[in-house]
């Protein structure tokens, strides 16, 4: 069955990733079923070592599953050739990592435009899009800065501009606030919220409950498998008042 009906951007069935063998066998991802709807923000939460990063790498085609199926926009991904997989990563997926992974010798705008250039956009179009995105993430005045001249929060915002520059189908983020302080985390949450409002599909793996709480849906992961799922919706500030010790 191929889901070409557009209901899901991403779909995984019986996904497994194993390392080692016999007594040393580790089931990092152990039978995961997953669907992500267009425009949805999904958070996968769990303690370190629960397999959530491995899952993200499988979903993004950075690693191959031991078993199971992955479909991206109706195309089966897990059996693609290396070449097709590389093309799909480049054209359809934006990655954001905990450690930012910016190149030291590239300025913010050069980093941000790189995926667009690799995807075959003209230098002019790539620069234009990257500049617009840096403006959107509040870094218009830092476009010519090298990473060493940027704070952690600013580097992560460059990384987000880079993830978006080729207009990916889906953005995958691995602990995007892992290296950020409280204020930079709040900025990052605001940015993810803007992306969400703009209809960007987002999958975030994290152990930061603050991000998880702003997602549409949160999945708990333990020992390679999903253990709980929560749909989150807004409530009232009246309840918030009670949380701060204010009686209604």
């Amino acid at each position, binding site marked *: 069955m191929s889901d070409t009906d557009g209901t899901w951007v991403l779909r995984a069935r019986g996904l497994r990733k194993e390392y080692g063998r016999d007594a040393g066998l580790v089931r990092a991802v152990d039978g995961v079923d997953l669907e992500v709807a267009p425009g949805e923000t999904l958070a996968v939460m769990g*303690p370190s070592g629960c397999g959530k990063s491995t899952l993200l790498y499988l979903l993004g085609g950075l690693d191959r599953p031991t078993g199971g199926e992955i479909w991206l926009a109706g195309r089966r991904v897990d059996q693609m050739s290396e070449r097709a997989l590389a093309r799909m990563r480049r054209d359809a997926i934006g990655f954001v990592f905990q450690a930012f992974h910016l190149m030291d010798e590239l300025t913010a705008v050069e980093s941000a435009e790189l995926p667009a250039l690799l995807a075959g956009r003209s230098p002019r179009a790539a620069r234009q899009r990257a500049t617009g995105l840096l403006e959107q993430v509040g870094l218009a005045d830092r476009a010519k800065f090298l990473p060493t001249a940027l704070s952690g929060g600013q580097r992560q915002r460059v990384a987000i501009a880079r993830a978006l520059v080729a207009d990916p189908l889906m953005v995958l983020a691995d602990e995007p606030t892992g290296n950020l302080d*409280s*204020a930079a985390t*709040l900025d990052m*949450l*605001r940015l993810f*919220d803007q992306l969400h409002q703009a209809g960007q599909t987002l999958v975030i793996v994290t152990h930061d*409950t*603050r991000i*998880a*709480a*702003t997602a549409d849906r*949160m999945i*708990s992961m*333990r020992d390679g498998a999903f253990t*709980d799922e*929560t749909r*989150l*919706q*807004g*409530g*009232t*500030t*009246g*309840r*918030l*008042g009670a*949380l*701060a*010790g*204010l*009686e*209604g």
Partner: protein
Amino acid sequence: MQQEVVLALLAKEPSHGYELRARLRGALGPLGESMNPGQIYVTLTRLEKAGLVTCEHAAGLAERPDRKVYALTAAGQQRVAGWLAEVAWPRPDLAEFHLKLIAAAAAGLADPVSIVDTQRRELLRRLRDAQRAAMAEPDRSAAALLLEGIVLRLQADLRWLEACERNWTARKERS
């Protein structure tokens, strides 16, 4: 509204009730919206009866119906000073939840892990509300600081729930 809070709002200078309300709103932002606006006047009346504030009718502006000016008495000032020096901190009632899990498991009435899951969902929804309210506040506003406190406490509670889940999952597997 706690009496000491209203007293302390008056410590700066004698004020009208609506001025106190404006100060509270500034400090609480969206969290103050659910407060009953009449509450502050009820509290002021009680404080007046207790001799902690005085109330004078100011001859004043016709367009402001509220012309009472409240001021701290010496006893009121003393109470504020005592309140500022007092060490008090709200206690989260963790023992009740802890005992609920133990009782549920002992009597076989409910699965402690699913009680933890339900509780986590509820806390995540609250965290979402607090987080959204914090995201809507301008940086460094008084209300943003209060909301950050709520967010941090909820995060701590969620971490404890994680520990509860690990512990009760392990117990289930042993038995």
